[in-house]
């Protein structure tokens, strides 16, 4: 591959929001040699690209610590190339791929493969979490050390939680040797069993087996006890219930190294959406209730939620057209996540742009322990330029993603990504 030539880019008059450095002001940003070289007023240096960002937000590129790009194994649903294109269209300059591919990412060469495909796609920066256990089977430790050397930023058996408590304890002890985060999809299978939606009113009348909130909360509570024992950094993926919020609140109050993320769908959709067996609303953890959404929003307001993550989960239309019991879980959303967060959080008065962007930039970067999510001089120039008020209508047919399983189809939202720069290079530009 040819060496990229450094491009000089001047972004003028934008509202620079860099929560890491407590900056929220109108400023120009000058990018050269892949990094931010100057920040100031009325910069006039010559540049290859001059972008007028008047009235726009200029922020560190977004970081999504939970995506499924389906490669290897399900390339008909998504590839790292298509997922990467979708990511930059959504303003994301870094993503973390989950290891529940086929075969799973449970050893170092698989980690290297994902990185290589990411470099070839040349859109967003691709990080990987490796599996905690071999084949994600929950039985034997995977080679966390060698995967760490290959660049894995954490470990998870995402898609299912590690069920056996002794196994999880061992995994957390072992992972502490490499100072990587251990990340959990909290779900006690003995409680969740064959459930396909929240165990509430609609599950009752639709005759669908339910997943009680306890299934999530029991495992989260258990894991917090293991954190107390081991001190290992622990991250709870996509928390969805008021009970989980309470557990996180208590763990943080105790000063434990526990972080968590929430998704757009657990902020905007409830179990009531599944009144008619629409499988685009089938997701795991399932959509819960307004009471749960309110608790999560309160937690965001209180600063308890560390990251906003899309859990972008592409599936074939033919699979989503199956019976609700059989159809796979998950929804795509990386290309419309930012305006959805705006709708859920800013429009609802839960937090402001700076607080919201913190959960999309430096705070997730901290979870995976990478030097990103900041736009100080000398930082790598991962930048997103957002028109915060531009209204547009979500149309999955226009997604860069290969899949269309999007429950927000037809929603009119506010907030549009205009440019995404990765290491100073314009990797996405809105065509209007």
């Amino acid at each position, binding site marked *: 591959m040819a060496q990229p030539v450094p491009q000089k880019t001047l972004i003028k008059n934008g509202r620079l929001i860099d929560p890491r450095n407590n900056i929220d002001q109108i400023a120009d940003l000058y990018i050269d040699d892949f990094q931010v070289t100057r920040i100031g007023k009325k910069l006039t240096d010559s540049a290859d690209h001059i972008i007028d960002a008047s009235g726009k937000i200029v922020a560190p590129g977004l970081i999504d610590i939970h995506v499924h790009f389906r490669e290897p194994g399900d390339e008909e649903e998504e590839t790292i190339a298509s997922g990467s294109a979708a990511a930059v269209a959504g303003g994301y300059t870094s993503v973390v791929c989950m290891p529940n591919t086929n075969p799973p990412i449970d050893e170092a060469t698989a980690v290297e493969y994902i990185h290589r495909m990411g470099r070839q796609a040349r859109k967003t920066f691709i990080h990987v979490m490796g599996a905690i256990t071999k084949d994600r089977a929950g039985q034997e430790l995977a080679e966390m050390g060698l995967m760490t050397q290959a660049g894995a930023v954490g470990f998870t058996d995402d898609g299912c939680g590690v069920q056996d408590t002794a196994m999880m304890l061992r995994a957390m002890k072992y992972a502490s040797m490499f100072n990587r985060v251990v990340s959990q999809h909290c779900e006690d299978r003995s409680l969740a*069993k*064959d459930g396909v939606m929240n*165990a*509430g*009113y609609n*599950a*009752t*009348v*639709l*005759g*669908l*087996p*339910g997943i*009680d909130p306890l299934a999530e909360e029991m495992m989260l509570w258990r894991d917090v006890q293991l954190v107390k024992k081991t001190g290992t950094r622990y991250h709870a993926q996509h928390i969805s219930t008021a009970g989980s919020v309470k557990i996180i609140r208590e763990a943080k109050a105790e000063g434990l190294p526990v972080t968590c993320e929430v998704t757009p769908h657990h902020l905007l959709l409830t179990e009531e959406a599944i009144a*008619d*067996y629409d499988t685009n609303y089938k997701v795991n953890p399932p959509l819960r209730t307004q009471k749960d959404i309110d608790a999560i929003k309160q937690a965001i307001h209180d600063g308890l939620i560390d990251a906003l993550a899309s859990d972008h989960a592409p599936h074939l239309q*033919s*699979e989503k*057209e*199956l*019976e*609700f*019991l*059989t*159809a*796979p879980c998950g929804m795509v959303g990386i290309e419309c996540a930012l305006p959805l967060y705006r709708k859920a959080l800013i429009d609802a008065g839960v937090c402001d742009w700076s607080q919201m962007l913190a959960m999309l930039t430096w705070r997730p970067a901290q979870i995976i322990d990478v030097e990103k999510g900041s736009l100080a001089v000398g930082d790598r120039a991962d930048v997103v330029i957002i028109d915060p008020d531009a209204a547009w209508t979500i149309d999955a047919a226009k997604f860069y993603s290969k899949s269309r399983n999007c429950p927000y189809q037809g929603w009119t939202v506010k907030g549009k990504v205009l440019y995404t720069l990765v290491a100073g290079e314009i990797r996405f530009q809105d065509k209007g």
Partner: protein
Amino acid sequence: MSKSKKIQWTRKHLIGISDLSREEIEFILDTAQGFEKFSTRSIKKVPTLRGKVVVNMFFEDSTRTRNSFTLAASRLSADVIEFTKKSSSVSKGETLIDTAQNLEAMGIDIVVIRHNAGGAPKLLSRSINACVVNAGDGFHEHPTQALLDVYTIRQERGSLDGLKIGIVGDIAHSRVARSDIYAMTKLGAEVTLIGPPTLMPASVKDLPVNVSYSLDDVIEDLDVINMLRIQFERMGGNPFPSVREYSHYFGLTADRIKRAKSDIIVMHPGPINRGLEIESEVADGPNSVILKQVANGLAVRMAVLFLVNQAAVSEGRRN
């Protein structure tokens, strides 16, 4: 018997009782009443659905419901195709929609579907043009069973208004219970669900019913008791410790029924587990309407096939 208000029947699918108004339910029952007498005639056929094709798509074992639909369709002079397949749990391969669209390409008019997945009939109704009649889907609904249940009660008592009806057993995994709850409450009855908490659905408190964990506490008040079949294949785990203990608390024994009203109506959707949820002496006793339910099922299903076809035909005329 009350004659229902004149309504225009416009539904070409029957997916669930939850969709229906009281007037629509009564309209089906009145229509069924018109078909009831055919069973006693020497020539039992009418030409109503002559030239029409009814497909029985059964993805789950069933004897009586399928036979009842087959016979109902035959009496209306329809051609009947039997399609039986164990539904697969794999997500790749020929889908339900593929299967149905293939059948539809051969020119079918009505699909009667039984499926282990709740929502399968709804899915089907969205993807084909033929009429869809739900013959039971997962734990969701079994509308024709509920219709024949309320038909039978109405036959015995004239009306359901103000009747106290108990439904006993595995409510959580019962599509019959769900459809019954809607049909009975819409027709003015008061429904009490009776069974152990482990067999109650997650959100039972939000349903328009009473709940009791003790059959003995409520049996004296009941006008009708509907004993659900204990379906071991559906329950999973062990929601009660033993058959013996279940029967002890929730079985309709000869002893227990002595404490009920003398004219209590005893119902069961069948097939019966004799000695488990109901003792033979009660099932075959004077209060039992179990065989009348079966006979009425035929009339109700004839009415349903007749009505959905009529709606499809008039929709075709409109288009």
